[in-house]
């Protein structure tokens, strides 16, 4: 029996586990026809695979219950994710169970796509290809896919060769072409190295948003936490240079706001200061002779002292690490800028230490944007007659407006899309051959040299879809007229090809490799020869009005290039900096807003030479006044509207404003390439912002301590604490007493915990209007508290969830004991007992209790994702964080099976499990040896609103602020 059938049978049995409502009608229980060793109904089975929500390629494990995937977690054995997973990865389930997924192949019939059989749809494509081939026009066939580093890529390349088509184009909107070009120039190596953040003492980032989307955000966030966390009185330093206070910038010990496009100037100025101060090798003197620090300071809007200070801190950190990237570092000067950054790394002696060539990133295999642009030009000339677009590729949305992709596509006779849900490109396609979701697919993926993750189906296909590999093989054979097992394309399926390809690697260890999630080995750094030469990193040339504002179009950490946007979980997860959900916005500096009379929520029209978009304004006190910033990737899936949000007409995609030109040195796109004009439209569309204010009003919710003081306290211990006094006897805990420690210093505000919690605990989506009105349901939220100068604040990220107070204000007010304190120190919330008086919600000083204002729906098939261990709440009941009581029960159950007590680390809450920086620790407060208790007794420990006397079980650790970073 093959795997897919096997899942299908189990799925049939799983269908009995109804999850919502309390129906009392007779229901059927379907037993398996054939028993299955791996899947026991009621017991989770875990399958390792690779996350394909972005090209970072994190290893994940999928939790399968009764044949249905219900939760994703980072694969703890995988070297990239190391057990963590970001918000986008967590939300991949919503792609799998997306209500808009195509039910099967589609063929265009006039204006609409109509369902067709696989045979018919494939035949249309195969016939066309065959016709072109026989006419000798193989070059009129083009295949564009997302980054496929391993077997699938190889198979597709083989396919293009066999059929004599154009070479495959690997299209990634964020391809890091300039980094490759700079490394080519400096090190003679066309590659993106591995950056060892964890080994650095000082990280100097020029716009590289490595905590959001840059290269491999989970892996780098974890490494960053290791480097930056306060441990034994020491902590690394992180300096970030960017015109906008991004999430990454707000995690920096020092954020330097520069004028857009001046990163290269600054890098060279820093190098100049280092050389002048004797902190760098003399051979760098020649490359910086032409650099005037004062002029660079004036051009970049950064004070000279700051440049000197940054240089000093960077030079003294041994080793340090300078990274550059992000969308502000694209455009006409991208390669010189990155060369300058390379020089900094060279000068500080970081290459080979923290900048490691050898374990090169898979991003090196991306086809440069310039070639994609050439393909589009060929389309415009009518040279392309068949265009095959793999899933994950949505050029109609992600290609710059200046390229006029949509017009070009109209010249193509047959556009074939393998996307499995509708997007801007499938709307223009002639044939849709839906690819399976990656959670349903075989495959492999190498995020970097030496690490190859194996992908396996973790569930039966939710909709009638086929792996792209299988489809092209079938079509290829049809074109060639060959049979399975024969000819140049003998493999029946991608699975077969994969197993053949892997046979020499894994030999007999196939099952073990599958279980582990892939094969990885240490890849030694490769020595590189550097070429030190002067570089001109003058600010980029920008198109558009000279007096316009520089447009910073940057990828949203929630949606990447728009791939994640169809996931409602991500839409409802707030952007940490603005705390806005659903709608995109244009970030406008206060100065600009005041000048133009723009208030927050005013709809503003942005016009560039290539188009215009309309977005509500977010007035930012931190943005550089010469810039406006718009996140990329905000789009709505059909089922979102009007169920959750009403989408205004017109484009809101900032990429549409960009020009087509590629940077000459690297062939990369210019996300920093245009100036835009702003105009008020007169309309208003207030943003759905969850946080009322970023000002703590002195309430010390998120606390911080200076590094010096933290060192002092770490040595001497915490100052004495006022003893708690009560007229009532203390509660006794016969068994465990659960608690949590959250390190505010480690939290980077990535929101992964929010989505993990949503997935684990069946938290519904409420939609834009409801969320804006304080009715969002997430059990955990990341608050951003800004301290100090509003224009240049220190941001503190505070994950706030139920504090499980020992003297909980919510409990005694409940008339029916729906809220009560368990014997294990949790605040229990019994949904079926709850009457909905909401008294507890009022009385909770933290306002972490959530109320089911309506009967929230889980549009099919999203309901299949629901965690069977957690009740789906009815309308009118209160809910809140349970500290994953279902995981606690499972953990205790396993411990009892092993006839022992629960040990530290046996139970991980969903938020803790997914946290890339390990900011959250759960454990038994009665176990003095547990990591949680050590945190709770740390000198940095405090409780939020301690003075109320609620005695929370959640302890926070103060953020450590570097006073002179």
């Amino acid at each position, binding site marked *: 029996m093959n795997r897919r059938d096997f899942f299908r049978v189990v799925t049939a049995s799983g269908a009995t586990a109804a999850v919502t409502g309390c129906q009392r009608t007779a229901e059927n229980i379907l037993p398996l026809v054939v028993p299955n060793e791996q899947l026991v109904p009621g017991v989770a089975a875990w399958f390792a695979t690779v996350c394909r929500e972005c090209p970072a390629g994190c290893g994940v494990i999928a939790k399968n219950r009764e044949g249905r995937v219900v939760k994703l977690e980072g694969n703890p054995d995988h070297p990239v994710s190391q057990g963590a997973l970001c918000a986008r990865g967590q939300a991949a389930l919503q792609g799998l169970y997306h209500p808009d997924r195509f039910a099967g192949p589609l063929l265009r019939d006039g204006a609409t796509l109509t369902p067709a059989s696989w045979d018919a749809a494939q035949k249309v494509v195969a016939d066309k290809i065959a016709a072109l081939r026989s006419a000798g026009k193989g070059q009129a066939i083009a295949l564009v896919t997302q980054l496929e580093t391993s077997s699938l890529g190889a198979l597709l390349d083989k396919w293009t060769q066999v059929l004599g088509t154009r070479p495959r184009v690997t299209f990634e909107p964020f391809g890091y072409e300039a980094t490759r070009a700079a490394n080519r120039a400096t090190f003679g190596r066309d590659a993106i190295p591995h950056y060892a953040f964890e080994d650095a003492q000082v990280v100097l980032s020029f716009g590289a948003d490595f905590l959001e989307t840059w290269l491999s955000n989970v892996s780098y966030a974890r490494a960053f936490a290791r480097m930056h966390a306060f441990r034994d009185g020491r902590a690394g330093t992180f300096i970030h240079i960017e015109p906008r206070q991004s999430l990454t910038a707000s995690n920096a010990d020092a954020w330097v706001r520069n004028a857009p496009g001046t990163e290269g100037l600054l890098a060279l100025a820093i190098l100049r200061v280092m050389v002048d101060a004797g902190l760098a090798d003399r051979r760098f003197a020649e490359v910086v002779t032409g650099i005037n620090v004062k002029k660079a300071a004036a051009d970049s809007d950064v004070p000279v002292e700051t440049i000197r200070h940054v240089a000093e801190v960077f030079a003294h950190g041994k080793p340090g690490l300078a990274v550059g990237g992000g969308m502000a570092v694209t455009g006409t000067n991208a390669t010189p800028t990155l060369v300058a950054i390379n020089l900094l790394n060279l000068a500080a002696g970081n290459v080979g230490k923290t900048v490691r060539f050898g374990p090169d990133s898979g991003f090196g295999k991306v086809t440069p944007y310039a070639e994609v642009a050439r393909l589009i030009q060929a389309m415009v000339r009518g040279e392309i007659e068949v265009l095959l677009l793999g899933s994950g590729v949505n050029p109609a949305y992600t290609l710059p407006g200046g390229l006029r992709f949509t017009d070009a596509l109209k010249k193509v006779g047959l556009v074939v899309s393998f996307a499995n849900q509708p997007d801007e490109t499938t709307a223009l396609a002639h044939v849709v051959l839906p690819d399976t979701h990656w959670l349903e697919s075989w495959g492999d993926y190498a995020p970097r040299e030496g690490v190859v993750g194996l992908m396996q189906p973790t569930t039966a296909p939710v909709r009638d879809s086929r792996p792209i590999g299988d489809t092209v093989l079938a079509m290829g054979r049809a074109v060639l007229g060959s049979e399975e097992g024969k000819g140049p394309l003998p493999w029946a399926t991608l699975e077969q090809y994969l197993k053949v390809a892997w046979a020499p690697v894994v030999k007999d260890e196939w099952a073990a490799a599958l279980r582990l999630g892939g094969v990885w080995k240490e890849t030694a750094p490769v020595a590189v020869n550097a070429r030190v030469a002067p570089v001109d990193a003058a600010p980029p040339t920008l198109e558009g009005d000279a007096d316009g504002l520089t447009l910073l179009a940057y990828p949203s950490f929630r949606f990447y290039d728009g791939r994640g946007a169809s996931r409602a979980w991500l839409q409802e997860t707030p952007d940490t900096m603005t705390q806005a959900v659903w709608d995109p916005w244009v970030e406008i500096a206060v100065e600009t807003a005041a000048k133009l009379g723009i208030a927050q929520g005013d709809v503003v029209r942005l016009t560039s030479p290539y188009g215009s978009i309309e977005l509500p304004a977010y007035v930012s006190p931190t943005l550089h006044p010469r810039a406006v910033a718009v996140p990329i990737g905000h789009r709505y899936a059909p089922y979102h509207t009007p169920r959750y949000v009403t989408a205004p007409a017109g484009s809101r995609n900032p990429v549409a404003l960009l020009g087509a030109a590629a940077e000459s040195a690297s062939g990369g796109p210019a996300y920093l390439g245009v100036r835009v004009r702003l105009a008020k439209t007169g309309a208003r569309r207030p943003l759905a912002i969850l946080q*009322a204010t970023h000002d703590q009003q002195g309430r010390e919710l998120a606390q911080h301590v200076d590094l010096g003081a933290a060192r002092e306290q770490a040595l001497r211990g915490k100052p004495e604490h006022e003893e708690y006094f009560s007229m009532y006897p203390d509660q006794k805990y016969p068994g465990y007493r659960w608690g949590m420690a959250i390190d505010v210093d480690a939290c980077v505000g990535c929101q992964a915990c929010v989505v993990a919690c949503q997935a684990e605990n069946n938290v519904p989506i409420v939609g834009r209007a*409801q969320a804006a009105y304080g*009715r969002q349901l997430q059990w955990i939220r990341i608050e951003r508290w800004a301290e100090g100068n509003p224009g240049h604040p220190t941001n503190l990220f505070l994950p706030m969830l139920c504090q499980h107070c020992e003297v909980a204000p919510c409990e005694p007010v409940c008339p029916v004991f729906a809220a009560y304190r368990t014997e294990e120190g949790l605040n229990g919330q019994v949904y079926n007992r709850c*009457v909905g008086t909401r008294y507890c919600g009022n009385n909770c000083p933290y*306002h972490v209790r959530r109320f089911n204002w309506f009967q929230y729906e889980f549009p099919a098939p999203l309901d299949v994702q629901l965690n069977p261990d957690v009740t789906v709440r009815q309308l009118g*009941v209160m809910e809140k964080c349970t500290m994953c009581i279902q995981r606690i029960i499972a953990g205790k159950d396993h411990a009892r099976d092993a006839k022992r007590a629960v040990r530290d680390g046996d139970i991980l809450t969903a938020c803790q499990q997914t946290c890339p920086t390990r900011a959250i620790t759960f454990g038994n407060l009665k176990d003095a040896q547990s990591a949680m208790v050590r945190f709770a007794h740390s000198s940095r420990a405090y409780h939020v*609103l301690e003075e109320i006397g609620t005695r929370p079980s959640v302890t926070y650790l103060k953020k450590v602020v570097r006073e002179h970073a």
Partner: protein
Amino acid sequence: MSDSHATSPTFADVTRDVARTLAPPGNLYFGWMSVVALILTAGIVAWTGQIWWGMGMAGKRVPQMWAMYITSFVFWIGIGHAGTLISAILYLFRARWRTSIYRAAEAMTIFAVMTAGLFPLIHAGRMWFAYYLLPYPNQRDLWPNFRSPLVWDVFAISTYLSISTVFFIVGLVPDIAALRDVSSGWRRRIYAMLALGWEGADSQWRHYRRAYGLLASLATPLVLSVHSVVSWDFAMALVPGWHSTLFAPFFVDGAIFSGFAMVLILVLPMRHFFGLHTYIQEKHLDAMGKLILVTGLVLTYFYLCEIFTTLYSGDDIDKASLFWKVTKTYAWALWLMYFCNCVSPLILFWKAARTSPVVLYVVSILVLIGMWFERFNIIVPSLGHDFYPYTWGIFYPSPTDTMIVIGSFAWFFLLFLGFIRVMPSLSVVEVKETLPPPMKDKAHGSHH
């Protein structure tokens, strides 16, 4: 208004005048009834929608998980208090002027409590499980949480409703007997049933009088306790602006204040339309006016105390909450409340105002508005600006909760309008008691 007894009515006059109020009503009455019924229907439709679609139909949110419904709940409970005060406390104090209004006031109490009692149900997210709050033996072995102020509410309000009703019915029995004996036909049969065979025999009166006195002495502490318990819904909570030991007396006083206003609102039209000027005289209005004035002044004192204790407490969060209430989004509601409750009753320092039905009516309406907003100001702004700045927010009423609150007034007036046409809205017996007893030998009776 018959002028046959311009000086002092006789016992027979009283019986006749009261019986007259129960004559078949005219078009004006039915007109009002249908208006009220229509509004009530709209309220019921709104409630039905809320049950069907969920609590989200009302304007509640985080942080204002309580809003219009609890405001109205406290408002109506407060209204009820004046009735019990008049019927029980003033009875114990032998305040004879109460007799002409106490029946109407008592009915108002019961209907107000019946209205108030709806609101916890309307407010509950799953009202169909509201019975979980009752202590009844169940298969779950689970009882209510007697530490919860809401369970205290259940006990206090159900006791209050029961005792008020019992007190009311006990007071009605001799009156219905009197009506029975002057009416005929089906009315007589119904009254005969309700009168329980009351004859006014000495053996009945002696137990009746004793029981009535005992009920009055039970109702007196009860009326003080009920609003104290209601105030503890707030005072027991942590919310800044709620967590105050002042609340019990503050609420009780406010309750009586608003209750008297409602009594006037009900009694003045009754006096006008039924021509009861003989029984509800200027001195009655004057006494009511004085009570409103006094309770209003006491309330003003409590407002000042509230502000003073907050400012003096040194609690920054409390102070921030107060400052916000006084100056920000909801300031209009606060200042409206201060005007209605503190300033508008001051006109009653003038006797002319106290005896003018028009002035009294206007002041009463202002007081009711002010007292509704007092509860609103306690609930909505306090919650909107409490401990946690992340969730601070502004509450906007929705059509549903607005309609339900308006509907509750309709429900109350519907009950009252129905009552005055089927039951004696003036106490026959007690009014007779206040008259000089008929004496043949006038000199003989003079020492009373």
